[in-house]
């Protein structure tokens, strides 16, 4: 019957789709263990050497290949990324939650304007935002460095947290808050004992999302990073532009593992809520 063929085609498409999504990633991970020094896509032997070189140990293999990139730069970039991500996450989560509470629990004249304002950074192409921030900082003689990166990230991460927490608030049963008030609790206590525990999964989700996005951000950071401070994505981008080295596979794989771990953590928390 024709319908059966349709279903089989559909399943084939679905599986090819998954394959397409994961194939490049799997290829990179597999070839990060490839010991071919010149053409990294031709399989030679299995080796951990590239991973070792990232962490500062050089082996016979890596000494053969004459690249001069220093691991210090890599480590520095990772450190910067983490510092930025943690700071931004803290700030934008607090501000995002506060704004979400304000907008969804009250009615005021400028409400649609506020909601529009908060959605804008998410829809805007990164490059526009990056340029705008660059121009702004330079014009007002604000030095480009870690601080400017943190500020830049907060600009759009507040929106992400806002959206996630708002969704959680919208799905909340507000009769619970009414019950709490009916039983004599003032607004602060109601918030602490009823509202907050309910939206906590949303807050955690928003924070994790902000963290990941901050760690991965390339375009905006690229424009406002300045000379001395690089983050990991910008560093890798630079590496790619200058020419590809085998260590890149290993770095990429490590980043993959890290991101997967964080995302899985996020899902785990969501399931528990």
């Amino acid at each position, binding site marked *: 019957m024709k319908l059966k063929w*349709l279903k089989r085609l*559909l*399943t084939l*498409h*679905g599986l090819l*789709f*998954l394959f*397409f*999504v*994961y194939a*490049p*990633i799997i*290829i*990179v991970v597999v*070839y990060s263990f490839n010991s071919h020094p010149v*053409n990294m*896509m*031709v399989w030679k032997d299995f080796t951990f050497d590239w991973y070792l070189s990232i962490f500062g140990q050089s082996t016979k293999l890596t000494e053969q290949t004459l690249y001069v990139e220093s691991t210090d730069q890599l480590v520095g970039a990772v450190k910067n990324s983490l510092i930025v991500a943690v700071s931004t996450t803290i700030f934008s989560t607090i*501000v995002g939650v*506060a*704004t979400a*509470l*304000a*907008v969804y629990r*009250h009615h005021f004249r400028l409400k649609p304007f*506020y909601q529009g*304002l908060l959605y*804008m950074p998410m*829809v*805007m*192409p*990164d*490059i*526009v*935002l990056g*340029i*705008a*921030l660059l121009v*702004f900082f330079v*014009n007002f003689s604000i030095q480009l460095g870690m601080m400017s990166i943190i500020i*830049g990230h*907060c*600009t759009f991460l*507040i929106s992400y947290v806002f959206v996630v927490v708002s969704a959680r608030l919208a799905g909340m049963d507000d009769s619970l808050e009414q019950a709490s008030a009916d039983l004599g609790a003032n607004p602060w206590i109601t918030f602490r004992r009823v509202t907050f525990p309910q939206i906590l999964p949303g807050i955690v989700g928003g924070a994790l999302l902000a963290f*990941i996005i901050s*760690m*991965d951000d*390339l375009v905006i950071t690229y424009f406002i990073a300045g000379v001395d401070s690089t983050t990991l*994505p910008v560093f*890798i*981008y630079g590496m*790619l532009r200058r020419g*590809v080295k085998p260590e*890149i*596979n290993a770095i*990429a794989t490590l*980043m*993959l593992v890290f*991101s*997967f771990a964080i995302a899985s953590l996020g899902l785990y928390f969501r399931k528990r809520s």
Partner: protein
Amino acid sequence: MPGKQENRRLIALLTPGSIFLGIFFLGPLSVMIVYSFLEPGLYGGVEWNFYHLNYGRILGWADGEWEEFDPVYAEIFFRSVRIAFTNVVITLLICYPAAIWVSGLAVRWRTFVVFIITLPFFVSLVVRLFCWVLILRPSGFMNTTLMGLGLISEPIDIIYTETAVLIGMAYIMLPFMFLPLYASIEKLDRSLVEASSDLGAKPYQTFLRVILPATLPGIAAGAVLVFIPSLGNFVVPDLLGGAKVLMIGNLVEQQFLSARNWPFGAALSVMIMLVMFILIIFYVRRIGRSEIAR
């Protein structure tokens, strides 16, 4: 009428966000718009004069003194629109059947599959694009495998072409198209599909008359979410297109980092923003209204 205390609370909650976004979001945007009307200084930097030619240059005009008519910028602009639009079509064609397939799976599998589809999204953009560089290069995975299998004798020259850029862009934007589509398809009332079949419609008729109209909001949302980032993208054309495929994002980057013509770069950015606004207004007006009517 909100009580005084409630008002105070509202203001307390709203202030930090408002101040921060006011200064660091609206501020930069305004400055950028202002810059787009300024004159570029000779050695970089800006002169504070009104200079309308930045926009003019985009369309190819010249001021008769320093510049000749050159439509190259308009070309780049249209190429970017074309690539962004093609990307929407490609991702739509790839994701729609996939979304239908996922929504037909058993409930237990569904959340898991959606999760593993969106998981790569959390990996850095650079890393994911880098994978494609490695695959598509002349010495890359695709060519070495195909040559190794004896299917081709010379490497296929795919990198640094528009095709490579499209592949890379589609790959990056897949979740943006998949998730809204999937949300819309999942909400579809299956009894409508049955009713259509019951009334004699063959499967393709059911698809065109019932399924497609019902999932139109998802398609529209996905299209907007894919088009806007595609338009302003510069990383993909840079890594996979080289100097051969210039998009408007590359142009902006050049103006700011090498050519040092900030006003022109600002003007280009404003153009991108305008396209974005037009799209969003269009979307909110037509799609938003039909959603409310439901």
